[in-house]
């Protein structure tokens, strides 16, 4: 049984938002200053124990207190109530290149930044060649950092960061920067850390990343833990919350659209998802048949339109899309309200959550209206032999 490396009991953190800033305001409002303070509970009643060797993802909507919690564990912020206790060496990667000074050379900054992250001078010296090689900026290492491009800066900072040697690694969304090969390096490094039995606590907006990397996900909302457990379960809770929020947004949008109704412009009224038989669909198999029904309205005298529909991931990546022009079936002239179905047969989807979109364009291909994030559905299945956006049964055969 691994020991706990982080123990949090009844943690609350309050921020005071002061509205007045200038001396004049302070004098005028003297004695009434309490009225001009607004308390904001960033975290309340958090109890959390983290075992050594686990990878924990902190997720939640913006402003839910994820980063605050991470800073509390790092010791950067102090609790108002409760305790945060830790054991082992902690390294916090809340920002790449913490302590970098623009006037110092790359070499000097490597030592400084490494020291800030708790790497000893000896270790830095030992890894120096590797760090420089990793960053790929050998020829600029003795140039002042202010002359670096932002890419070079980040690469150097990252090269230092991967050489941290902590028991607990705290990572904020810093890893979301950089190009794809760079992100890949990050992921490889994190997996290496996991194999070493280090504890990783990270904040991410990418639920896919959390699902892929973590043993455990903690969902925060408005400063409280609303779900805590294996990533699939916890993320499901979060996704449902996001859907609710999205539904609210859509309602608001529809309300606006009704005001626009007098405008003489074709629009998508709604997008619904059915199975081939026409029953509403919320759960699909890994090989799915989908009927996406788009209801379009062309006000006034009517016009020729092109109608399209497709499937997206929750992060807006289009898995598949098509329109009537690609299919080669003209929708043609529409006047008033009409429903058009786009049917996909045998669509192979990886397990996870998806939504559909529908759009309408004029014959020149100029998009006139689009409804996103409609009819969310879940793809479930038993086959875990592959991962990615699409699905196939995979097997190994020796040649």
């Amino acid at each position, binding site marked *: 049984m691994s020991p706990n490396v982080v123990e949090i009991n009844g943690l609350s953190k309050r921020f005071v938002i002061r509205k007045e800033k200038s001396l004049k305001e302070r004098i005028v409002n003297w004695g009434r200053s309490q009225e001009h303070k607004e308390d904001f509970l960033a975290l309340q009643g958090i109890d959390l124990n983290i075992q050594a*060797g686990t990878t924990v993802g902190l997720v939640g909507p913006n402003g839910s207190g994820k980063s605050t919690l991470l*800073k509390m564990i790092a010791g*950067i912020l102090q609790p108002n109530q409760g305790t*945060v*206790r830790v054991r*082992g060496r902690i390294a916090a990667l809340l920002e790449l290149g913490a302590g970098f000074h623009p*006037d*110092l050379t790359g070499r000097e900054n490597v030592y400084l930044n490494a*020291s800030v992250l708790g790497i000893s001078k000896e270790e830095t010296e030992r890894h120096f060649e590797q760090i420089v090689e990793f960053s790929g900026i050998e020829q600029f290492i003795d140039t002042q950092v202010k002359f670096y491009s932002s890419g070079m800066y980040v690469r150097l900072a990252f090269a230092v960061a991967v050489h941290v040697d902590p028991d607990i690694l705290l990572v904020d969304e810093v890893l979301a920067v950089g190009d794809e090969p760079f992100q890949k390096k990050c992921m490889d490094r994190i997996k290496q850390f996991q194999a070493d*039995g280090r504890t990783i606590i990270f904040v991410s907006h990418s639920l896919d990343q959390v699902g892929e990397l973590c043993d455990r996900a903690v969902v925060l909302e408005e400063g409280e833990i609303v779900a805590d457990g294996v990533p699939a379960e916890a993320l499901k809770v979060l996704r449902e919350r996001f859907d609710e929020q999205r539904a609210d947004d859509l309602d608001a949008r529809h309300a606006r659209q009704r005001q626009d109704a007098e405008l003489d412009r074709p629009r998508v009224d709604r997008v619904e998802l059915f199975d081939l038989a026409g029953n509403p669909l919320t759960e699909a198999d890994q090989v799915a048949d989908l009927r996406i029904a788009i209801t379009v309205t062309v006000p006034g005298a009517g016009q020729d339109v092109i109608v399209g529909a497709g499937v997206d991931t929750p992060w807006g990546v289009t898995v598949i899309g098509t329109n009537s022009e690609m299919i080669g079936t003209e929708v043609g002239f529409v006047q008033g309200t009409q429903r058009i179905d786009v049917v996909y047969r045998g669509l192979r989807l990886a397990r996870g959550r998806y939504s559909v979109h529908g759009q309408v364009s004029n014959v020149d291909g100029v998009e006139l209206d689009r409804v996103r994030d409609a009819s969310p559905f879940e793809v479930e299945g038993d086959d875990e032999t592959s991962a990615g956006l699409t699905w196939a049964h995979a097997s190994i055969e020796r040649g």
Partner: protein
Amino acid sequence: MRVSRQERDSALAMEPLRPAGPAEGFVGSTLHAIKDVFDHRELLGLLTRREIKARYKDSALGLIWSLIRPIVQLLVYWVALGQFMGMMRAIPEFAVFIFTGLTIWQLFTDIVTQGTNTIVANAGLIKKVYVPREIFPLSTIGSALFNFGMQMVVLILFLGLRSAQLSARHGEGVNLFPLGSRWIYGVLALLLTLLWAGALALLLSAINVYLRDTQWLVEISMMVLFWASPTVYALRMVTDQVGGWLLQVYLANPMTMAVLGFQRAFWVPGDGFDTPGTVCREVTTYDAGGLVEAAQVCEPGRVVFGPTAYPGNMMLRLGIMIAICTVLLWGAHRVFARLQANFAQEL
């Protein structure tokens, strides 16, 4: 060197849980902070070097600028106060006198003014990583000490050159270089300055986070305080004007004692000095109309200065002040420790 999962787990299980961030407690937090800073001494060294390097980076003369400033300051005071206002006639080796005072004073102002800004200036780091925050004021002490060291080198060189020049003029050995037990005063004065300035830097750097007016207040206070210690004038000029409790207040200023201690160490002519120079006297004549006409007649001779008066029991006074400032430093750290809890959110 890879550590296996099991080894890491068992090593962690041995370790006690500790609170994240700085430790709490009345005395415990100070002891813990000292240990924490000691553990981060490499970072402290690097930050100090960063302060020194970054300051004059890209300038052609670089570090020499840190010497030019005090030398120009020395010249200005030497010309304005020494020559124009005649301080030279009251204070032997006036140039050595001011340089000694300015060197220790510069150390004090550097630590306090830069120290006050240091937490705000390092906001980026404080918000993103946990390192003992005491490191930032301490790193300004480090860079100020570096400057101080450079000035000391210049002071020593100057003393050597001036000794040689005077010896040649007198035709006998003149030594301005401090020897023997004088150095004890210098060391005590330096220690006192570091403790007192360190206490102020810790306290003000923390307050400055909440009230940014502090840094401007400090700047102005330094201007006033400069004249509140006998850096460019002699203590005797104060004792001539004030006495009693007012004088004791004046002497209770730690920087007054530090400056006096430093002068006692490095300003050898203060012990009594005579030098070939120009002696002037007033000659009064009456013209035909009976009008009085005053004139100065100057001729070569020997200028003799008696020993400069220092406050009694200087060693004891310095010792007591060092003790007091050690307690103040601890008090300042208590305040710092209390205020630092909210640094990251207030910056």
